[in-house]
């Protein structure tokens, strides 16, 4: 069969023209850089199982952007947010990030991705040299590993190793006081669950050397039923249980463990319990679950923090999440750095960000700092407490000590070969 060529423009020529057109429209983001408004791109997860967290990131950013714009924007330029859904897929996050900079002309990226996506966006930032603030990834290596370090990327999220140090020392103190020697763990079977549980156990054993892990369970992520895991733990008869299950998985687990009266048979440490997404959903929240603070408006117990939580609730009709404060902090730091540099230029802002200390509702002492050496946030409120079934949910939070955190973090970095 022979193909006949139709007269007119060939398919190949059309494609070539379209390609050329795309390049013409895509490249001149440099030329638009001096436009009146400054575009800030934000890939985040707005659909799928984690959508609630992505939405809460967007909400927090918009809340803060309003304030910054009302005060004159970044060095006189109003901020325009361009927010896109990555569906939680790393390759999509990278594609969206690239498109935001190259096609939409964004001069700054707020990377509100989970860890998997954050590493992908990080590579885009390395490639394009654009100022990028990671707001949600808590994986320590993102900033701790010198191989990842680039001058234009910062992080305003918690860091896994900080949480493990504080959680481990808190748990060890209770283990010693109550004689809890036999421990079980139950965490989701993926990178976050394995790493976080591993680090937590390391520090728990370091502070309380006679602790022994007698049972481990690794249910898969988003597993609907945990009955076999619950009964397995009951069989092992541990004195304490650690879990880093989160979100809907954690609430399912609590509902299912509750009817086996698991919570009355052992001390339970669930790092992700004290977040409003889980606290407000569980109908029969057991009393006395130990949890790390994610975001609660009563810790730090300052008027600033309470006011921020209430303002968020007034605007969006729900409480902020852990991702909310991390994203709000990015905008607060951005605004301060721009003021200090008196510029909206990414490189100058990056320079100003290094070592910048700002007042913050989320700071352990009312301030947070962007540490210069590894460009990650320190000094944020971090602590553990026990739950009650109604507001304020975690009435008393025992604060983590940043001096200890810094010492052990330095030691940890050395052990990993990072310094």
């Amino acid at each position, binding site marked *: 069969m022979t193909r006949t060529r139709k007269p007119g423009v060939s398919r190949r020529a059309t494609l070539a023209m379209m390609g050329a057109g795309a390049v013409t429209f895509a490249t001149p983001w440099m030329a638009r850089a001096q436009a009146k408004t400054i575009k800030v791109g934000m890939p985040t997860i707005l659909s799928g199982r984690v959508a*609630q967290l992505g939405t809460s990131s967007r909400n927090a950013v918009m809340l803060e952007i309003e304030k910054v714009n009302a005060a004159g924007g970044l060095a006189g330029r109003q901020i325009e947010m361009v927010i896109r859904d990555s569906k939680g897929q790393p390759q999509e996050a990278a594609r969206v990030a690239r498109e935001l900079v190259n096609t939409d002309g964004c001069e700054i990226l707020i990377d509100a991705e989970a860890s998997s996506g954050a590493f992908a966006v990080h590579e885009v930032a390395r490639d394009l040299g654009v100022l990028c603030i990671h707001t949600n990834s808590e994986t320590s290596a993102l900033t701790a590993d010198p191989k990842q370090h680039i001058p234009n990327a910062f992080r305003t999220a918690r860091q896994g190793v900080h949480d493990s140090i504080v959680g481990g020392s808190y748990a060890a103190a209770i283990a010693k006081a109550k004689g809890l020697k036999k421990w079980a763990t139950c965490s989701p079977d993926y990178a976050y669950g394995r790493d976080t549980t591993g680090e937590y156990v390391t520090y728990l054993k370091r502070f309380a050397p006679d602790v022994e892990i007698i049972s481990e369970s690794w249910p898969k992520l988003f597993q609907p039923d945990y009955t*076999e895991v619950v009964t*397995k733990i*009951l*069989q092992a008869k541990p004195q304490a249980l650690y879990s880093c299950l989160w979100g809907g998985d954690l609430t399912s687990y609590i*509902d299912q463990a509750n009817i086996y009266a698991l919570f009355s048979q052992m001390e339970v440490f669930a790092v992700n319990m004290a977040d409003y997404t889980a606290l407000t959903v569980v109908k029969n929240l057991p009393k006395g679950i130990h949890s790390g603070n994610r975001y609660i408006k009563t810790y730090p117990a300052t008027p600033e923090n309470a006011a921020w939580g209430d303002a968020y609730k007034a605007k969006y009709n729900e409480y902020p999440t852990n991702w909310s404060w991390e994203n709000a902090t990015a905008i607060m730091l951005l605004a301060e750095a721009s003021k200090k540099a008196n510029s909206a230029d990414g490189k100058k802002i990056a320079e100003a960000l290094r070592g910048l200390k700002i007042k913050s509702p989320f700071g352990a002492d009312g301030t947070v700092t962007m540490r210069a050496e590894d460009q990650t946030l320190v000094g944020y409120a971090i602590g553990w407490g026990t739950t009650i079934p109604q507001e304020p949910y975690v009435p008393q939070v025992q604060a983590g000590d940043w001096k200890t955190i810094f010492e052990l973090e330095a030691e940890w970095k050395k052990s990993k070969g990072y310094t």
Partner: protein
Amino acid sequence: MLLLDIDALTGCLASSACLVTQTTSGFIIGMLLFLVAVGLTLIFGVLKVVNFSHGAFYMFGAYFAMTAYQVTGSFALAMLCGAAGTALLGLVFERVFMSRVYGSDVLMQLLVCYAFVLIFDDVVRMIWGPEFKSMGMPAAFQVAPLFIAGGVVPPYYLLLIGVALVAAVILGLGLARTRIGKVIRAAAHNPGMVSALGINTGLIYGGVFALGGMLAGLAGALAAPVRSLTPGMGFSVLIESFIVTVIGGMGSILGALIGAILIGMIRSFGSLGFPLFTEGLMYLFMVIVLVSRPTGLFGKEVA
């Protein structure tokens, strides 16, 4: 790494307490799975379509039950709403959409079902929102678990197993002994002949689909107090239901029951003996059944 923990398994088999706890735990997982799988197998047996959107009925059952429970505060009414709501949905879905693709090839049926998996998930997202929800355990069941021979058994799970067993018995007897059951079996065997005898096959098809949807909805409603509700929650249940129907034999109700209980037991005892291989164990078992009995344990040769 603990790939094989024989000590934990034999230790459990030797202790009555552990045996009771793990066996009931296996039954709970199995019976909910049975309710979903039996609908799947029934629809396949009579309508000869594989309903890939079956997980959505499980999801709707849970959401209907939660809403009914929030509005009325009655647990019984919540279960009823979960089952009745999905039955109605099944009927409408079959009459309006599925009935149009009976003659088409499998790919077409698959595409229609998959489209509805996405549509139903988005409908749930629009009505109830994207975030996960929890129905909460009714006060009547917020009691201490029972201790039977040292084993822990929550009362709610006894109810759950009971309801599922009653459904299985009614379904089995209904199909075997009643006139409607006979007509359904006849329609499964030779729809043309049944139609020629003046029986409305469309009605039977719609009815069977509604029944399948209702059973999945009942499973969702029963699971709602203990599992978190999210759009897309039907998917993982659907996958396991397929494993159950493949093991038990497509179209066999007894096969679905035995298959579901086997899967429940594999999960329950597998998590003790093979903590890192519980999921794999299910698939391995399925492969063994497929190799030794390609039609499933209770499947009949395809006519």
